[in-house]
């Protein structure tokens, strides 16, 4: 009996040991040990093994389980679900803390030549040395690489790396390659420090789109040539394998890298040899040693953690955020002290499926749009975390002063609407002959009842509430609108692949582009350009299938315009068309990122009037120029 107990307990310990090896396979710090442990263990005395082994192997996991609070900056609202891979070429790694390319690229682990600052619209050098410049014909961009820039393996970052990254993007048709190759001819290294980006030229010898070429330098990572070649060798030139490689061995240039991940959290750790401590860049290391992101189930769980002081930087919608300091007295604040609390940058928009019955009629589209009570959406759905349409009249621009100045507000004033205009909407429909002919309370168009489903993904609370308000507006003007909330996994496949189903997606919500170097042109193109209409795998915009040759023409011309007056005229015309045709309508203004910070541990976060120059934007201290904020952080109680 005693022997049996001993045997059983030994077996139990052995199995615990084996089980404990599983997560330890991920940390890069101990690559050799996990394979050694199982073979070793049986030879040793089983009682001894569990005591010695786990302390050695689980170090990363154990540290991650109880990170030193004063060295860790906690996030929420960025990472949903576990990390899949660390491959910066892939767009399906679900690795929000490390990989996110775009207008405000996330530069924690990988770096871009320049950092975009949404507050002043400028690009500041990171890997690059000094500003970039066009040649006289505006066909080539030239910039230099900082001599101090180093990869994590100690080798210098060179112009070759920039050129080869582009080469790989095109060769393997990554999303970066696909979306830029119509505008960029080639990226070449003139010498080890000098990069030249050659724009694609049109028939007249001018750059097809200089805006996109210029945006490339702050939106896309530079990746190491040597590592990329290693990856190519490993995957044998197969694009599918190239893009799905987990890339645990990736070489990076940024200040942070992988420390630990599992289903519950992601932890990045600072690289104390980071090149950026060179005086030519930051001159020091970022303050937090660890960047940690606990993976929460939903917004409510994230808010609870924020209230408990377990989250320092919250990138999620916290409803009634002001209650956190007004009612609960917590040391929590947002970028602005008063509503809308953040700087609006994108325009969450309700798209009409223009193939739905009756929605091809401008009168129906405009009637629904002017009947919607936007004040309720702003106050109730967004809990005032959006500017109202009284403050910022609708257009294609986001509420930042820079973009608002780009169109003539007065010229389109007569087309504006502030919403909740039930009588106006009814009149519009009556005049168009769309009336209730059979007396059931609902209007008919050519004898068929107008009946729509308004939809957005389930669980996206602010959008859901907004869609409810849209449906309520329909009821008031005699158009039967009901709501439906499919799961995001279903929703995204339906919405991004034309044709939309006949029912269920008549009015649906999607986002618009936020702030970036190509804005507002890029946003307008996404919303209105026919190049995205009726396409599949469309993650860009114009999901309702709107086509207008005049709009296409303007969108094509604007990037090559240089005269400010001409540009303003073109933008004003676009806004005019948008407000006349109403192919979609903005429901609220939304910040680029929500930026709510907890000051129980760290302080000196970016906020309005914080005196930083250039100003640090409220983008969670990870995106674009906002990473400068990581160097300003201080401990509340050092």
């Amino acid at each position: 009996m005693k022997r049996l107990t001993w045997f059983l307990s030994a077996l139990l310990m052995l199995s615990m040991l084996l089980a404990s090896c599983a997560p330890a396979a991920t940390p890069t710090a101990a690559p050799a040990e996990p394979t050694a442990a199982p073979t070793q263990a049986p030879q040793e005395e089983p009682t001894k093994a569990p005591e010695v082994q786990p302390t050695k192997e689980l170090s990363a996991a154990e540290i991650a389980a109880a990170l030193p609070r004063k060295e860790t900056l906690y996030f929420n609202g960025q990472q949903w679900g576990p990390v899949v891979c660390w491959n910066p070429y892939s767009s399906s790694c679900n690795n929000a803390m490390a990989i996110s390319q775009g207008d405000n690229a996330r530069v924690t682990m990988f770096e871009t030549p320049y950092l975009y600052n949404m507050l002043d619209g400028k690009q500041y050098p990171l890997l690059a040395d000094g500003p970039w410049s066009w040649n006289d014909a505006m066909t080539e961009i030239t910039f230099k690489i900082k001599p101090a820039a180093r990869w994590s393996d100690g080798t210098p970052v060179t112009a070759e790396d920039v050129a080869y990254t582009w080469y790989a993007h095109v060769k393997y048709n990554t999303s970066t390659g696909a979306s830029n190759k119509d505008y960029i001819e080639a990226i070449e290294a003139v010498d080890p420090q000098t990069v030249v980006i050659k724009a694609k030229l049109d028939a007249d010898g001018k750059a097809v789109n200089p805006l996109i070429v210029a945006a490339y330098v702050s939106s896309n990572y530079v990746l190491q040539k040597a590592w990329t070649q290693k990856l190519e060798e490993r995957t044998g030139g197969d694009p599918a394998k190239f893009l799905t490689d987990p890339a645990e061995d990736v070489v990076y240039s940024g200040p942070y890298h992988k420390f630990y991940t599992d289903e519950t959290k992601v932890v990045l750790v600072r690289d104390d040899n980071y090149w950026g401590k060179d005086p030519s860049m930051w001159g020091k290391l970022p303050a937090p040693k660890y960047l940690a992101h606990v993976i929460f189930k939903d917004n409510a769980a994230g808010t609870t953690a924020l209230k408990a002081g377990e989250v320092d930087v919250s990138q999620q919608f916290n409803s009634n955020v002001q209650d956190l300091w007004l009612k609960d007295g917590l040391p929590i604040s947002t970028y602005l002290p008063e509503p809308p609390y953040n700087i609006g940058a994108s325009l969450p928009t309700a798209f009409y499926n223009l193939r739905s019955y009756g929605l091809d009629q401008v009168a129906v589209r405009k009637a629904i749009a002017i009947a919607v009570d936007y004040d309720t959406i702003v106050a109730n759905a967004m809990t005032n975390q959006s500017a109202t349409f009284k403050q910022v009249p609708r257009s294609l621009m986001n509420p930042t002063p820079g973009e608002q100045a780009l169109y003539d507000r007065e010229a389109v004033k007569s087309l504006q609407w502030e919403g909740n205009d039930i009588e106006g909407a009814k009149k519009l429909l009556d005049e168009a002959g769309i009336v209730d002919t059979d007396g059931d309370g609902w209007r008919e168009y050519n004898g068929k009842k107008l009946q729509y489903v308004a939809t957005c993904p389930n669980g996206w609370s602010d959008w859901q509430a907004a869609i409810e308000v849209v449906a309520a507006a329909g009821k008031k003007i005699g158009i039967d609108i009901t709501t439906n909330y499919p799961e995001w996994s279903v929703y995204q496949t339906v919405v991004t692949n034309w044709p939309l189903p006949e029912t269920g997606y008549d009015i649906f919500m999607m986002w618009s582009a936020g702030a970036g170097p190509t804005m507002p042109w890029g946003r307008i193109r996404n919303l209105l350009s026919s190049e995205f209409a009726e396409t599949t795998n469309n993650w860009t915009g114009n999901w309702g299938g709107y086509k207008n040759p005049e709009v296409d023409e303007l969108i094509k011309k604007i990037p090559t315009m240089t005269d400010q007056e001409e540009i303003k005229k073109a933008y004003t015309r676009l806004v005019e068309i948008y407000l006349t045709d109403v192919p979609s309508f903005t429901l609220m203004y939304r910040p680029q990122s929500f930026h709510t910070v907890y000051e129980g541990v760290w302080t000196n976060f970016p906020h309005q009037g914080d005196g930083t120059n250039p100003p640090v934007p409220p983008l969670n201290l990870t995106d674009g120029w906002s990473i400068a904020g990581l160097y300003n952080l201080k401990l509340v109680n050092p």
Partner: protein
Amino acid sequence: MIHTLRQVFRSGKFVTGFVIFVSLLLIVLIYPLLVPDDPLAIIGLGTFFPPGIYVNVYDSVNVSPYTLNLPDATTKRIADKLGPKERQDMKEFLLAAGIPEEEIDIEDTAKLLDLWEKNYDPNKNIEGMTLAKMRYYQRLNNSLKGLLATEGLIVALPNAQTGQLEQVKVIEQSDYANINEVPNVRVLPLGTDNFGRDVLTELVKAAGVSLQIGFVAGLIATLIGLVLGLLAGYLGGMVDDIIMFFTNLLIVIPSFVLLILISFSIGQDKRGAITIATVIGFTSWVWTARAVRAQVLSLRNRDHVNLSRLSGHSTVYIILNDILPYIMSYVVMALILQISSGILAEAGLSILGLGPRTTEVPTLGLMMNWAMIYQAHVLGKWWAYLPVLVTIALITFSMNLMNTGLDQVFNPALRE
């Protein structure tokens, strides 16, 4: 019949349950007559207004005031803005600003405010002070403005021609408005929800809809269970085998899982309240069927049934006249249980987001769902979810009480 009813109403448990249930039912029926508002009308611009009496500020300025000289009015007014905590916080700031401690007297309001006014600078950067704290002091400073003023507030209107402000009236600090004279007063006993809807009006409507759902679901489930149970029990043989095969099959599958799957596949655009009720009904009849069958099995060989059969009565006649009356009490009890579990099932489904589509009618489950989506439980907005929970609990509790009461009357084993 009268005797049975008298017996039933002698059971304390039944009567308690019955009274609760009937009062709920009466509220559901009478309240809409008193408050005829649309239960889904969005009245509040903002989320989760707390319960209370809302007096129109514009109107109360316009009613003719009464002067009341209440001794502690000023004290209360000051205490509202400047409580012990605020005084302590002000002291902390003044200390940090370099004022010696002996000069700060937090009890003397006038002196404290004077000191504050002289030393507070919103742009002053005090070492180690967080942004949250700085903003707190800015808000505090704003709320203190004019705190000690004794003169009234001036109401002014812009002149239509010149655009200059012209004094309309002065509101003295001792002016009071009688709430009965203010034309616009709205009582929101349970505040508003995340959409700015009156929670009480919505709750009453929702309770009604949920009861409807419960009744429909309960009736369908009981009816199916009763018919199948009667047929299986009385006819026996092949019919019994087939019916029991399906019943047993459904028993093994948890009915809530089945409910989730069916609701999901129907799609939200087609899920009305009655559709959901029907689905609930069609997934919860199995236990009734089995129980009825067991009862019928024991009944069908009784002498009076055999006699009836010998007299040449048809099967339907025998089932209706010789069997059904004997299990009626059981069926009524089963129905009550089915109704209450139907209400719970709807609530469960709606919390998962699989309930009836919104925008048409509120249900108890949908109210819970939205309260949770908007984090009422995290933010401490109890009025958005607690009354809903209490209502659900009251309905099911009253029905279960009635059921237990009936059981005590009809079940000989439990009779005292």
